[in-house]
């Protein structure tokens, strides 16, 4: 049983939703916040005053396909 390479005696076991949920909520929220800062902050909406974030990630925003000014 020390061999961990694929032997066709086992298959995919789903991860229970209750184990997944806290990760999905907190992780998902933080990761989407990161995408928001790259994609939309100081564009359509703004949490920080000024245009520095917008100008700094300007090229990435255009090339990643987000609407930009």
């Amino acid at each position, binding site marked *: 049983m020390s061999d*961990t390479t*694929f032997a*066709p*005696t*086992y*298959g*995919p*076991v*789903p*991860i229970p*939703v209750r*184990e*997944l949920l806290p*990760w*999905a909520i907190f*992780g*998902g929220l933080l*990761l*989407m916040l*990161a*995408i928001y*800062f*790259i*994609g*939309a902050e100081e*564009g*359509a*909406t703004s949490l920080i005053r000024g*245009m*520095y974030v917008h*100008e*700094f*990630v*300007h*090229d*990435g*925003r*255009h*090339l*990643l*396909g*987000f*609407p*930009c*000014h």
Partner: protein
Amino acid sequence: MVGKLLLRGMLVGLVAGILAFAFAHVYGEPQVDKAIAYEEQQAQAAGEAPEPEMVSRAVQAGIGLATGVLVYGAALGGLFSLVFAYAYGRLGSLGPRGTSALLALLGFLAVIVVPSLKYPANPPAVGNPETIGYRTELFFIMIVISIATMVAAVGLAQRLWNRLGAWNASIAAGLAFLVVFALVKAALPDINEVPENFSASVLWQFRVASLGIQLVLWTVVGLGFGAVVERVVAVRDQRGPARRYA
């Protein structure tokens, strides 16, 4: 287990971001430069004073672009790993690498390709600043609808699986997806704010480069994540009930 997947997903996403940055710098930046040159030429012709540069072009095209693409890549990898954590073991008997590759393909179609057919990426100088709120709203609405339709289509394929067989069930679900997309595409308003005399070739090359960046990201995440988590997932599976991978 989910923590392990999330960490690996973000690391793979970061690597994907580095490669996508290289691609963006080589193939995307020349188009951005041409678009900005056009923008400046138009402003000059209209007798407007040049816009003050808050961030220099070199910074925007270098560290600024890198920051944007790397953060986006890591976030994409992380979100991808969370979707994988749910989908794994719930998409028939696909193993970790197959699940990862299939999710990346479906995700690339639902999140990038389909929405960009309606609202494609635009270079600088294209787009009216006054409509940015409206355009951003439509862009995200389109992505949400597209993802929801894809999830529904995968569910449909699974329901039809036993009755029609894998191939026919997938084709039927794919057709259902296309019908919904055609209706949504017709229902949502069009946006065309490309200036009359903007170079068609620059616009085309910009959009191809933009799609290319996403293709690099999703390919590396889809194939890389499967390779990186294969062992972790297999060890966990071995402790579970006896089943078979496809």
